[in-house]
């Protein structure tokens, strides 16, 4: 993995003449986990799509780039709310999908190792339909890790999971994605309070930076300072509009 760059995005986006967001500007610090928290429909996902090079459906007037000047293409991995696993491939083949799509040799041993690290060693040869929602999302995490990109963009990847799986998945992801530049879009104040080394609150009015409690992430979900920060974020969300 090459050095993780910081990300900068500033400008405004419109779709068919209607504003999607902005003008606004945000910075994602290099090698840190940044949560972008906000209600649905404020354009959080559009920011993620612009950074991952998928912004074709909106008109964007501004800059979305890495601070080191090199293009972002090829340095970004994306994990979405849906696991996007191919139902006809087993877990290992889903993890090595990227190599196959680029015409490179698939490294099955590395894929098997990654599946072990997400706790799915025993399920490596199962297909998605034989796995639970949480297990499928762990395969998607292994696929993201397999790509070994310095920038990881997460679009509400845990929001479809039950509370327990979600907390386990948050711990796992925070551990395995450490050191990368992570931008995590979420509408869940509790999630942002646990995971964000930086938390950006996005509303129609723009983006503000919230200061999380000190200490490493993931924060314990039941620690008073985590809960207090979660309450603070929730209040901010309630006060908009």
């Amino acid at each position: 993995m090459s050095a993780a760059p910081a990300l900068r995005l500033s400008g405004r986006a419109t779709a068919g003449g209607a504003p999607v967001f902005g003008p606004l500007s945000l910075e994602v610090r290099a090698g840190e986990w940044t949560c972008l928290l906000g209600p649905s429909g404020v354009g959080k996902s559009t920011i993620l799509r612009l950074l991952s090079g998928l912004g074709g459906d909106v008109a964007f007037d501004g800059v979305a780039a890495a601070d080191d000047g090199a293009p972002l293409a090829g340095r970004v991995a994306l994990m979405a709310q849906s696991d996007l696993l191919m139902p006809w491939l087993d877990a290992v083949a889903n993890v090595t999908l990227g190599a196959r799509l680029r015409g490179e040799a698939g490294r099955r041993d590395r894929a098997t190792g990654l599946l072990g690290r997400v706790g799915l060693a025993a399920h490596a040869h199962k297909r998605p339909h034989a796995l639970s929602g949480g297990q499928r999302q762990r395969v998607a995490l292994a696929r993201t890790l397999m790509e070994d990109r310095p920038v990881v963009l997460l679009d509400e990847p845990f929001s479809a999971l039950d509370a327990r799986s979600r907390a386990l998945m948050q711990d796992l992801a925070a551990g395995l994605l450490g050191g990368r530049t992570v931008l995590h879009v979420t509408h869940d104040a509790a999630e942002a309070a646990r995971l964000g080394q930086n938390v950006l609150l996005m509303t129609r009015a723009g983006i503000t930076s919230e200061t999380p409690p000190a200490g490493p992430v993931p924060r314990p979900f039941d620690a008073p300072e985590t809960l207090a920060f979660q309450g603070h974020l929730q209040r901010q969300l309630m006060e908009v509009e």
Partner: protein
Amino acid sequence: MTRTLRILGTVLLALLVWQAVVTVFALPRFILPGPHLVFGTLWTSRALIAEHAWVTVTEVLLGLGLGAALGFASAIVMAASPVARSLLRPMLVFSQAVPVFALAPILTLWLGYGLWSKVAMALLIIYFPVTSAFFDALMRTPTGWLELARVIGARPARILWHIRVPAALPGFASGLRLAAVYAPIGAIIGEWVGASRGLGYLMLLANGRAKIDLMFAALIVLAVLTLLLHAAIDAACRRMWES
């Protein structure tokens, strides 16, 4: 088990209605022979019917195989290239505007009275359903998968082969299921227009000689063969999807 019983029940009911119609209206055997007569003829003429059925089955299977392969390839070419799409799509629609029935005499003229004019008929009649079902499915790949592939840095040809084609196989399978029912129609029309063998030919011959029982026997064999073909393709598609 219950399914088998249901099917048996339906067949039995149909036979009863058939026999009742013959008895109540006192129909002569050259208009509508009763089931016992038809099945009697089916048994006594089994060698003759089997010989002609074999010819029709060969035509249908060849037409189905070639038509499916051609449809598979056309749909992929159309999905891969916008130029091919704009050229081939109108031709595909036009091929449906010309009734295949009307082409039968021309195909017989070009390809002769033998096997290949019937294979061509079966092929033509299934080409459109197979191609359009598969092509539609190829164009409806879930956006999320395509975007994931783009971020991963996939080449378009590999996206097509590793994501769009496997994702579209259920569409191809539904095209094939339709084809299994259509292909025999093509072969039979071909045989009616000009042939010296095959179930279609045998039916015409029996009709001309007022052997209506033989005609019905051939018809039943044709229907059963078509059902078997459909069931076999259905089972094959299910297995392909599950494995």
